[in-house]
């Protein structure tokens, strides 16, 4: 599976009657194609696709002053419920607590491709700001008309419009008895982030209390009347085919529903315990097939490269041949798992032929489409709802648990919930791709780079292009055959690509005896990159000399509008074990919407990066995962934390970009380069230290 691309859903439906029936009267602002306003009639149904540069978003101001914001984006811990509320409150001039966010419900919100790629803030944030600004202007115009005055003499504050004499009316009162839909004005002027009062500030999670009291219902916590618990029969290894299955014992158990559709076999019962017992009673015969193991994976990926490696072009060959110095290396990157703390869960209910599924996914509309396809249903017969979920990190794009629950619920004629075990999550979800990256560089003694050839087998394209000034370069991604299911990950392939590139650059700097930081600054013209490098180095005190036995490393990258530089200090002990002493990361992604939540996301990226850098790796043999548990697959814990320092550069002159991805990329190469500095050894594998020690 390739990192997922955006697909455009053909229909964007706004049914005016339904909309106001649901919400009551008031003023709505939506992205709609303009010609629909020319249509007479009650029901407004634009059927053409949303232009690629637009995202769907609706804002509704009800008569009681509640502001409902509809977005297909979902909350997986990145705190966009809060940051998007802040942006709307800021533009609309309303108190933050008057805003209700309706997120990721495919029956209520406009189509959205999904919450990934750090696009929520730049795209959805901007769109919602425009919608809110459009609404505010419309309200001003309405009040001006009522009061027979010029709207420029009026002002909006905290949900009210007032004139200079102190006459006041609330937004809700103003819209009373009306049903107005307005298109989002593309040219509407937005507030300047320099003047922000609500946005740009540290505000705690808007629904924070529900989490610290345990009252928030994640999908795995949900319960419907008569609900059954589902369990699925799993194959003993990947690609195994079901040859024979004996369901008699399970079917004989009271209160147990058994479903078989091809290789899909599942049971549902009133308790998890009973469902498990029923599952255990099933005797299945599987035909297993030959599958590669981890010990051979890197050769396998190179051997099975689909299009073969591209030969160097003439310029590269020539500049490589004439280079004063050359450096070649091969970097091997293991598969790793997302391990969201909440495993996949789906709760399905069929009512009068319509399927409703609650599931934790970053792509509610994608999951809806998958259900429509798999179950052969008309799109209006499927609704997917996504409550705030126990994280994703790019790992919850797929529909497995939702579909399993839907199949069982259909047969059971009762709601069914399927919650994956940790082992299932480790085995049947998907992984960050493994990869092999070959890098060949030709450069001069003064540190300038003439030739660069970078070949990535299997792990992907993201972050493959360099930020360095290199006369001749060729970066290619060579898809291969993957024995494990692979997919999107935080930062996609850039964790791998940046690791290989920044490791290589550090080696080259060392070969010509130039400081790692200086070498990078010398070879880039990108001012935003230089700014984060300089900021990180300054805060880290890069120019100091590391104490004996220690080393410093630095790495940088850019991803999805975010620029990052990371410095690391490591200590190598006499027994060769390595301790990460501290990390300093500077990050810039335009104007900051909520400093605390941004810092949280950077921190999250750094800590997840630590796991992938140091010890996370999926071990597998002959189509079986060997470490499918949290006791066998090590993730970062409290004790693994070095001292972490974050420097956020606030560029109020630039649009806000997301922070879900870039912060992770610098961690592994910075640590690797610090080990290089301390020992002279340049590691070429990820994870760097699966045993905690250098070999």
């Amino acid at each position, binding site marked *: 599976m390739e990192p997922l691309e955006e697909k455009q859903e053909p229909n964007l439906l706004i049914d005016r009657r339904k909309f106001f029936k649901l919400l009551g009267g008031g003023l709505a602002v939506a992205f709609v194609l303009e010609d629909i306003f020319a249509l007479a009639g009650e029901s407004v149904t634009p059927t053409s696709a949303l232009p690629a540069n637009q995202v769907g978003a609706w804002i509704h101001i009800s008569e009681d002053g509640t502001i409902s914001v509809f977005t297909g984006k979902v909350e997986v811990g990145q705190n966009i419920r809060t940051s998007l509320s802040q942006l709307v409150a800021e533009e609309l001039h309303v108190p933050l607590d008057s805003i209700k966010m309706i997120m990721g419900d495919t029956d209520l919100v406009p189509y959205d491709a999904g919450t990934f790629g750090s696009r929520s803030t730049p795209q959805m944030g901007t769109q919602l700001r425009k919608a809110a600004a459009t609404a505010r202007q419309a309200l001003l115009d309405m009040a001006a008309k009522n009061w027979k005055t010029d709207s420029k003499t009026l002002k909006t504050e905290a949900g009210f419009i007032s004139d200079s004499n102190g006459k006041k009316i609330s937004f809700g009162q103003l819209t009373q008895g009306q049903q107005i839909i307005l298109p989002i004005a593309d040219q509407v002027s937005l507030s300047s982030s320099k003047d922000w009062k609500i946005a740009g500030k540290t505000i705690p999670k808007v629904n924070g209390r529900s989490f610290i*009291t345990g009252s928030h219902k994640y999908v795995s916590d949900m319960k419907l009347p008569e609900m059954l618990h589902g369990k699925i029969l799993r194959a003993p290894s990947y690609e195994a085919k079901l040859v024979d299955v004996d369901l008699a014992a399970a079917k004989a158990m009271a209160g147990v529903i058994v479903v078989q559709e091809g290789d899909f076999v599942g049971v549902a019962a009133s308790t998890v315990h009973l469902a498990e017992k029923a599952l255990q009673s099933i005797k299945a015969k599987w035909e297993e097939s030959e599958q590669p193991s981890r010990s051979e994976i890197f050769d396998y990926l190179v051997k099975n490269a689909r299009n073969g490696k591209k030969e160097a072009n003439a310029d590269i060959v020539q500049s490589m041949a004439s280079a004063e110095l050359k450096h070649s290396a091969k970097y091997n990157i293991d598969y790793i798992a997302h391990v969201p703390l909440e495993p996949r869960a789906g709760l399905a209910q069929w009512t009068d032929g319509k399927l409703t599924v609650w599931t934790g996914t970053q792509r509610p509309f994608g999951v809806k489409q998958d259900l429509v396809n798999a179950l052969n249903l008309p799109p209006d017969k499927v609704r997917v709802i996504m409550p705030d979920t126990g994280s994703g990190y790019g790992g919850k794009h797929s529909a497995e648990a939702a579909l399993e629950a839907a199949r069982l619920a259909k047969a059971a004629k009762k709601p069914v919930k399927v919650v994956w075990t940790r082992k299932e999550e480790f085995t049947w979800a998907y992984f960050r791709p493994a990869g092999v990256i070959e890098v060949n560089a030709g450069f001069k003694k003064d540190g300038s780079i003439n030739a660069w050839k970078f070949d990535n087998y299997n792990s992907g394209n993201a972050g493959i292009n360099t930020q360095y000034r290199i006369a001749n370069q060729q970066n290619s991604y060579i898809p291969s055959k993957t024995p494990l299911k692979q997919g999107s990950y935080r930062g996609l392939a850039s964790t791998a690509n940046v690791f290989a590139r920044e490791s290589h650059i550090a080696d080259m700097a060392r070969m010509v005896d130039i400081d790692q930081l200086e070498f990078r600054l010398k070879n880039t013209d990108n001012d935003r990159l230089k700014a984060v490098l300089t900021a990180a180095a300054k805060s880290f005190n890069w120019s100091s000399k590391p104490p004996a036995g220690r080393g410093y490393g630095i790495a940088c990258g850019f991803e999805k509008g975010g620029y990052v530089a990371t410095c690391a200090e490591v200590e190598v002990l006499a027994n060769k074990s390595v301790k990460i002493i501290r990390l300093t990361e500077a990050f810039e992604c335009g104007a900051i919407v909520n400093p605390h939540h941004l810092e949280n996301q950077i921190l999250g990226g750094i800590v997840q990066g630590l796991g992938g850098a140091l010890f996370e790796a999926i071990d597998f043999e002959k189509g079986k995962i060997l470490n499918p548990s949290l006791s066998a697959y090590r993730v970062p814990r409290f004790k693994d934390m070095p001292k972490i320092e974050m420097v956020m550069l606030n560029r109020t002159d630039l649009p806000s970009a997301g922070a879900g991805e870039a912060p992770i990329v610098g961690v592994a190469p910075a640590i690797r380069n610090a080990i290089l500095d301390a020992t002279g050894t340049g590691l070429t594998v990820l994870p760097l230290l699966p045993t905690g020690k250098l070999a």
Partner: protein
Amino acid sequence: MRLNINGKAHEVAVEAGVDLLSVLRDYLDLTGSKYGCGEGSCGACTVHIDGKPVRSCVIPAASVTRKSITTIEGLEVNGSLHTVQQAFLKADPFQCSYCASGMIMSAAALLKTNPSPSEEEIITAMNGNICRCGTYPNIIKAIQLASANK
């Protein structure tokens, strides 16, 4: 069997061998305690048994019938938040918050026995709790805030 949870007696019909976490979540709808691993490795299911932090996913419900069990739902007293919850609400440490209940239960147990723990002591006491979103440094700060507010 009869379980004493959050100061209330609950009568539940449960097969032998079912773990306490499943009983809390599936039979009693006390879903504040979370499943993260089912093997005692992540701390998401932490509850207090007679005041001590315990991983409810690895103990049979039948083994605690005579004990006093407190879950995250029982930490609030008369609608007012426990000091640890107050501190966590204020410090806003989490991302997805799936680890929150377990973190708060472990932290509350720690502060009960050691009201002013050092950073080292916090790290040692909390090391069995995983936050996959990586908010550890924030959680340490929240615990320190709770400790200062005591």
